[in-house]
Structure formats: C-alpha cells, structure tokens
C-alpha cells in the first residue's frame, strides 16, 4: 500500500528524467559515433581533435565565454553589493531580473536598433560631434550584448549570498579596525564565493554555445561551438559531427561544475 503510494509520486519524476534528460544525452552520444553515411565510426572525434578549425573554434568559444562571464561578474558584483544595501532592495533586484521575461530574440533586435549605423547610440555620438562608429558585428558588441543577457543570471545568486551574510560579521570586521576595502576583500567576497561560483556555472556554459547572438550581433564573424552545432544539424546535415560537438560541450560543462563546486572541510596547517 505504502509502496505503491511512493511509486506514484516517483513515476512522473522518473518519466521526466528518462524522457527529457537521459534519453537526449544518450542519443547525442549515440549519434556522435556515426558518420554522414550512418556507419559506426570514431572518425568524428578524430576529426574534432585533429582539425585546426574545430580546435580554434573551441578555443574561441572558451575565450568568448570566459570574457562574457568575466564582464558579467565585474558588472554584477558591485551592482549586487549596492542593491543589497538599498532600502527597497527586493524591488530593485526585481527590476534587474525583469528583462529575463522578455524574449531573447526581441532583446537582440533591440540592440541591433541601438548599435546599428543609424541607431540611437550613433545619433547621440553625432549630436556631440563625434564620428559615427561601426559597433554592430564586432567582437566587442557581441560580448557587450551577451554579458547584458547573462547579468540577471549572475546577479541573482551573488545577491542571495550577500543578503545571507549576517550584519554582525561586517560590524565585527569594522570593530577590529578593518577599512571598508579590507572588509570587502577579506570578509564579504570570501563569504559570497558560493554565489559567485553558482553564477559562473549558470553563465559560462550557455555562453559557450550562444549561436543566435553570434549571428545577429556578432555578424557571423564570431563562430562558436554553438554556431557549429546549428550548422551541422540544419545546413550540412552531418548529425554525427554536430553530436560530437554536443558531447564536447557536455564534458566541458561537467569540468566547469567540478571546478566550481565548493569543497567543505577546508583545512590549513
């Protein structure tokens, strides 16, 4: 009786897990061992790790994802710090999160409007007598827009870890003679490290495969692993190679998770 009751609760969760988590991953791994003629082969992996194109693409993706993550931390951390000190902080954090409710494509088009040759930013430049800049379809604009998209996902875990810090730690630090800067570097940042790490986990991986933005804002000059996956599945129809890149992305995700998981029982001698 009790047993069947338990199974009843387990079933939807298990079904979900099998249908939408385990089987897609298994399928990706399975497809990655077939070439374009549906023959079993390891050549996809061979090609990936021996061709200069894929390796530079990987390096590029990692570099861009790293830069996007870095800039979103640099912007999010001070922002979270300021918001956590404000009187109506919950309202302010809501305003920061609000843009995530808007479709990604819409936001990308909005940026095209802002950054294009006749866009708002250039109009402002002209008003102040500055020359027109070509901002769209550059690396810088790609990183800017990607960081903008990722900031809410970075700020939220950092903000939560900040509001968890007891006020008395800050007081104790001040009381012992620490300046504001020393309190920040020695107390606040170490105590918000878990928040920063989960922020990195949430931001870094999707940044590896941002194909839509690299097309719309980066003007296809920035080719990431995400773009390559899209190309293989939709254009060249080489599902095997696309899956191989997918497997590489999954493995790199696992690596990032392992690197950023907080280890307890830290001990120093």
């Amino acid at each position, binding site marked *: 009786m009790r047993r069947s009751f338990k199974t009843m609760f387990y079933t939807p969760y298990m079904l979900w897990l099998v249908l939408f988590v385990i089987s897609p991953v298994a399928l990706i791994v399975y497809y990655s061992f077939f070439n374009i003629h549906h023959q079993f082969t390891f050549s996809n992996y061979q090609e990936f790790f021996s061709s200069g194109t894929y390796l530079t693409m990987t390096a590029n993706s990692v570099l861009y994802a790293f830069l996007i993550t870095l800039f979103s931390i640099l912007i999010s951390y001070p922002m979270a710090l300021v918001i956590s000190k404000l009187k109506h902080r919950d309202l302010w954090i809501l305003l920061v999160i609000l843009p995530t409710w808007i479709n990604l494509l819409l936001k990308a088009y909005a940026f095209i409007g802002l950054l294009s040759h006749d866009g708002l930013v250039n109009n402002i430049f002209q008003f102040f007598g500055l020359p027109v800049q070509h901002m769209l379809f550059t690396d810088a604009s790609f990183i800017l827009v990607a960081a903008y998209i990722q900031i809410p996902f970075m700020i939220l875990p950092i903000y939560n870890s900040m509001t968890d810090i007891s006020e008395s730690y800050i007081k*104790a630090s001040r*009381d012992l*003679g620490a300046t504001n800067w020393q309190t920040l570097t020695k*107390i606040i940042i170490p105590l918000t490290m878990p928040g920063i790490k989960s922020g990195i986990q949430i931001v870094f991986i999707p940044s590896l495969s941002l194909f839509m933005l690299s097309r719309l804002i980066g003007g296809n000059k920035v080719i990431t692993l995400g773009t390559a996956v899209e190309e293989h599945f939709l254009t060249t129809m080489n599902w095997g190679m696309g899956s191989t890149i997918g497997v590489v992305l999954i493995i790199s995700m696992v690596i990032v998770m392992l690197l950023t998981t907080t280890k307890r029982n830290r001990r*120093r001698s």
Partner: protein
Amino acid sequence: MSKTIIELKNVYKKYDDFTALKNINFTLNAGEFYTLLGPSGCGKTTILQSIAGFTEVTSGQVLFDGKKINDIPANQRPLNTVFQDYALFPNMNVYDNVAFGLVVHKVSKDEIETRVHDALKLVQLEQYAHREISELSGGQQQRIAIARAIINRPKVLLLDEPLSALDAKLRKDMQYELRDLQQRLGITFLFVTHDQEEALAMSDHIFVMNKGEILQKGSPVDIYDEPINHFVANFIGESNIIPGKMVADYQVAFLGHQFECADAGMRPNEPVEVVIRPEDLVITTPEKGKLQVKVDTQLFRGDYYEIMATDNQGDEWLIHSTNATKDDAVIGLTFGPTDMHIMRYNETETKFNQRLETYED
C-alpha cells in the same frame, strides 16, 4: 580615584517617534568592570553601539580619554566588542579569526604569531588554533570571540550579552573567567546584560536602566540593599514590596504596625514603599513574629525553600528559608531594622544620594 576612560555627556538617541536614550550621563574609570543592566529594549545595547561607533547619537557627547569620538568611524576607535552571536568569521579558522585585528593593521607576521598564541593561551584554547569555527562548541566560540576582541590591546572591551547563548552551568563558569580575565588584563569592561545574577556576580559597578534612562548607578551591594525605586527593587533579586508610611525618622508603619527602621530624611507621615528581601525574613512561631502569615505553597530550590505566604490583608510574601514548613500553617515572621529598606515615590538618584548623606556617615 583612577582615571576616566569613557564619558557620556547628555546623550540622546531619537528615532522618528521613539526616544531610545534620554539624557545619559556616566563616566567609566580605567580598569574596572561595569555592567549595563535592564530589560530588553531599555536602550542598553544602543549605548554600547554608540560607544563602539555603530550608531550615531542624536545629541550629546561621547568622550574617550577626554577626546570627543562622536564622529570617528568604528574602525578607528581604540576599543573592541564581543558580539552576542560572537560573529566569528566562518571563512577563517580560529587562528585567522584571532589574527584578523592584527592583519588589518599590517602587523608583522612574527608578531602576529606570538600575539595570537598569547591571546589563545589567555583563553586556554592554544591547541585549537587550526580548528574551523564550525568545529567549536558554544563555550569555545565564546572564548575565541574574546581572544579576537582583545588582540588589538584595547583600553575598553564592550561585551554585548556574550553569555546569553550558553547553558546555565557554562554561563556560571564563564562569569568567573570573565571576571578573572578582566582583572588580569586590567582593562575596562562594559558588559551589557538583562540577567541580574550575572551583573551582581561580576561587576564593580552596575547601571540599572529602564526605558532609555539610567535609574541607578552603584556597586552590586548598594543596588541590592538600597534600590532606589519599585522597578529596581523588583528587577534586581526578588523582594517583598509593601506600601507604608514614614511616621518619623527611623520609624515606619505598615500593615497596622509600627517598626524601627534604618532610614531617615523624609517628611513626617510621607507615604513610602518598604522593601524586605525574602532571605532577610526569619520564620518563627506566630507569637514571637512581628507579622503573622499563612503558608500557601513551598518549593524546594535545592539550597533553600521558597515559601509563598499571605498575610491577613491579602498581601503575598515570599520567604527563603533553609528549613521546610507546613502548607496552610500560620507562621510568624521577624526581621531587624536594617533588613528593611524604605523607598520614596518618584525620588531621583541625585536626591536619593543627597538624602543618604544627611544621615549616613
């Protein structure tokens, strides 16, 4: 008379529609143990915070060593605090916590090591230097918090209800240790508590507070024996408070009898309150007693019996006795002239002290 280290002059603290501190004046001398005692919300922590620099006073002066420190930020004030929740940094081990005050002042590594070692030795935890904070018991965390607070060699240590999180046995042990530590270090302790027993046991001087005001200052014995008003008498220890009338100097009347007492300096026939501590009441036979009461209940408290009794006017009496009595028995109570303490209504501390001087030598 030793030297004044901290002085508060006419200090007020007001929030929008609430006055947390009303005209606080006191001086703390170097090397003594002071306690701010009062119920929660009486403003004692606000005083501590304004001395530590976490709260700005609305008006008045806070002086340290004769210099006004109102506008000096907390991190530049030469005094340290032990917090109620200890506030030990969870990202550091015991050694780094204790060393923090020296590290932020850029003291050399060798000196840090010897001073941290000394501080840990002082609180008898030198072998715990490399433990994590989460591995310590409450009592150990308490001691580390003290070691961390004294590492900068402050002249004054502020303690914000540091014993309230400990269990009863440990709290008693820590009372001895804190007192001992204060005497060995020779620095001023300003201790905040709502526990009158703690205050009486450790302090050189107690300031009793209620509703943002200091009601009475004095040594534990003075405050216990001569409380200024009903609130203090009730808050410090247990007491029997009976309304009476001062017939003349050294003569007080209550419950239809006239007694000889040790107080004077009041108007003839002035209405007063009489305080008699439960341990000063001696049980005797009804014939020999100055008062006759009927026992309602008695509780065995280990080292004494706590007896509740009622007199013929319906007043309740609390008696501490080493011997048991019988429920519903009528017993006699005796007490000497010095066992009574007479309180006038609405007497200020200054007037109270002036009156005492007129007849005490």
